[in-house]
């Protein structure tokens, strides 16, 4: 290169050094920066995911445990049936003062005199009101229990539960909190004696909704969501697959099919509340289906999920190479045989993935359910899809609105249950794809 730079006497202006390596460093730096941006974006996303999970799990894990009181209770005839009328009037056993049995047993355990009324009232407040039903059901199941002393497990009241889990700030003035110092003392005493202890909260998965936080559960919501998913799957998969096969394999390409395609893509982006309005007008007001029923919810969510499934299915069908179709047709298969024997099985993993993602989307939907009356207080587990019910996200929404403190841990607990379901469904989608997907 040096020979290019002639002495000035030669009259030639020195040229710039060769441009071959100019900019390489700059381009490397740009790439490093770009990689850093990408990493930063992922880190940002992960950080928020972590914060979300942390805030839910740290608040919600306690919901899976519930404080219970296990105590031998005397089913005293004097309290349940003082007039000995149960043979003639079965109503006596239904309306008897069962909470009194529990209170007396606790008072005896704590050594509180039966005449100390203010103390007795405080003792009553430590046990959940649901104890009445627990004890009544025991008597109804086996009336011979009356007069005997049997160990019974009942729920502690929500305030005692919160206090036992350490969620109540005891440094606040006594008048400004829901548990008194006396009750805290008794609680610790009972815990030492092993009467009061935390157990796994089966009720959270079995019970219906309740106005008492300690007895409220996701039973109705789980069954309702199950019905919803069943109906959506049964209706939207066949309809969606049939529609996509026709559009992809049989329909001529013209203005009309173009219009349909644009509309399907549009529908996939319509806000879900619109489907709720449609459901209210068509299924409830016109077809006179019952309000709050999972059947109506399922139909509405089917409409909402269909475009997603059709789009996914069409993409999966299009991904099957034309050589497969050509070979099948060439060997004498009919159009329908080609589709059902060759194209559809090969497209199945893609179709199922799309369906599961559509279902997961439907599982987390609340807005359309609001208008058809599924955002409601429902205590009885529905036996059929025609009976009133709620759904998991609806239950989360309703618990989040409750005033009682004890509902906040349940809200987070319910979110964890919903997240678990979503993770299972999405894992299923990934596994299906891994297992059956074929690449060409």
């Amino acid at each position, binding site marked *: 290169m040096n020979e290019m730079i002639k002495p000035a006497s030669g009259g030639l202006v020195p040229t710039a050094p060769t441009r071959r390596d100019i900019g390489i460093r700059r381009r490397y730096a740009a790439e490093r920066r770009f990689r850093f941006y990408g990493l930063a974006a992922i880190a940002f996303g992960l950080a928020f995911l972590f914060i979300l999970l942390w805030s839910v799990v740290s608040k919600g894990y306690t919901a899976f445990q519930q404080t219970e009181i296990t105590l031998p209770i005397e089913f005293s005839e004097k309290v349940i049936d003082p007039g000995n009328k149960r043979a003639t009037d079965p109503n006596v056993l239904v309306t008897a003062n069962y909470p009194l049995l529990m209170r007396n047993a606790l008072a005896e355990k704590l050594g509180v005199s039966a005449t100390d009324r203010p103390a007795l009232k405080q003792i009553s407040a430590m046990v959940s009101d649901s104890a009445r039903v627990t004890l009544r059901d025991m008597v109804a199941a086996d009336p011979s229990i009356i007069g005997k002393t049997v160990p019974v497990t009942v729920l502690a009241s929500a305030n005692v539960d919160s206090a036992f889990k350490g969620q109540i700030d005891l440094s606040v003035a006594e008048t400004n909190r829901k548990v008194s110092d006396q009750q805290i003392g008794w609680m610790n005493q009972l815990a030492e004696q092993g009467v009061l202890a935390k157990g796994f909260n089966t009720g959270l998965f079995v019970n219906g909704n309740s106005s008492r936080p300690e007895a409220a559960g996701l039973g109705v919501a789980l069954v309702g969501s199950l019905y919803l998913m069943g109906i959506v799957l049964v209706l939207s998969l*066949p309809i969606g697959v049939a529609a996509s096969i026709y559009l992809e394999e049989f329909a001529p390409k013209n203005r009309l099919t173009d219009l349909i395609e644009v509309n399907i893509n549009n529908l996939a982006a319509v806000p879900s509340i619109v489907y709720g309005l449609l459901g209210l007008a068509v299924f409830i007001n016109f077809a006179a289906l*019952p309000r709050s029923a999972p059947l109506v919810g399922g139909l509405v969510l089917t409409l909402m999920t269909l475009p997603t499934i059709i789009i996914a299915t069409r993409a999966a069908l299009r991904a099957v190479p034309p050589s497969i179709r050509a070979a099948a047709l060439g060997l004498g298969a009919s159009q329908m045989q080609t589709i059902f024997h060759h194209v559809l099985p090969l497209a199945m993993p893609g179709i199922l993935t799309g369906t599961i993602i559509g279902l997961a989307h439907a599982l987390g939907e609340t807005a359309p359910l609001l208008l058809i009356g599924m955002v*409601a207080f429902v205590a*009885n587990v529905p036996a059929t899809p025609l009976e009133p019910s709620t759904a998991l996200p609806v239950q989360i929404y309703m618990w989040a*609105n409750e005033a009682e403190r004890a509902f906040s841990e349940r809200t987070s607990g319910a979110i964890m249950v919903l997240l678990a379901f979503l993770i299972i469904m999405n894992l299923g989608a990934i596994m299906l794809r891994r297992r059956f997907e074929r690449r060409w």
Partner: protein
Amino acid sequence: MNSLKLTVAALAASVVFAGAAVARDQIQVAGSSTVLPYAKIVAETFGETFSNFKTPVVESGGSGAGLKEFCKGVGEATIDIANSSRKIKDSELDACKAAGVTDVQEVKIGYDGIVFATDASNPDIAFAPVDLYKALAAEVVVDGKLVANPYKKWSEVNPALPDAEIAAYIPGEKHGTREVFEEKVLAVGCKDAGAVDVIKAAVADEKEAAKKCIAVRKDGLAVDIDGDYSETLARIAANKTGVGVFGLSFYENNADKLKVATVSGVKPSVETIASGEYPVSRPLFFYVKKAHVGVVPGLKEYVEFFVSDQMIGPDGPLAEYGLVAAPDAEREEIRTAVEAGKTM
């Protein structure tokens, strides 16, 4: 062909489902989110006490939405009871009648108090309606003239109030609570401030004048909360000097986080509200479709159970949750009206 069979089966199943319009055996209730917790307690206890009836279904969604659903007509697909945190409006009653819901039973269940509260770390606050009016109205009277609200701090409104920026979280316009706030606080404060005459002089139309009295400033210092009280609580947790509007029961459940303000020198409590001493309270109602009584099993029993002293009495579970029980004589009146099946 399997998926084809599946499709046919699914369609057949849905037709069968749709065709079987079964008789409803469960009471359906909708309406006010303020009444919702009380209705839930009654519904739950009702289901437990009367083992032959199912627990009623209680939807939330607001008084207006509930009454609209209620007035859709008579029959299986319509609701039986609408909860409301205000009296039914004449226009709503007319809509009901037009749709064939002619016999509507009004049942009062008790009273609800509305309290003003700040974060627990604040000093005690004593409001008068006139302070709240001056701080939150869109236009106030200064030197005899109606001007856009110039106040930015509570202490400018009333030197006794804290020297903090005005920030109030009040219920949004779709809430029944908003009406009580306008009627019992703003309208009263408007009168006390002597703004009524000035407004009347400026606006001839009486209705317009009344509207101007209760108009809330829109410059961001008064924030409408369209959600529920937990949202208000979160706003106050974020802005410690903010003042929020809560229901008495919500405040009592969160008394460790909130400090309640007195209104006209009266501290809100069950006692002061029942006696009428505390000025900001309202009656709560539910409305029963008479045509459904005797058709939907348990409806009559539910209404009677609701108004029994076991529920709405001063020692009942509703009072424990925060409902202010009506005085003895009034409860007796309510029960007589229910038994007689009095309609509006």
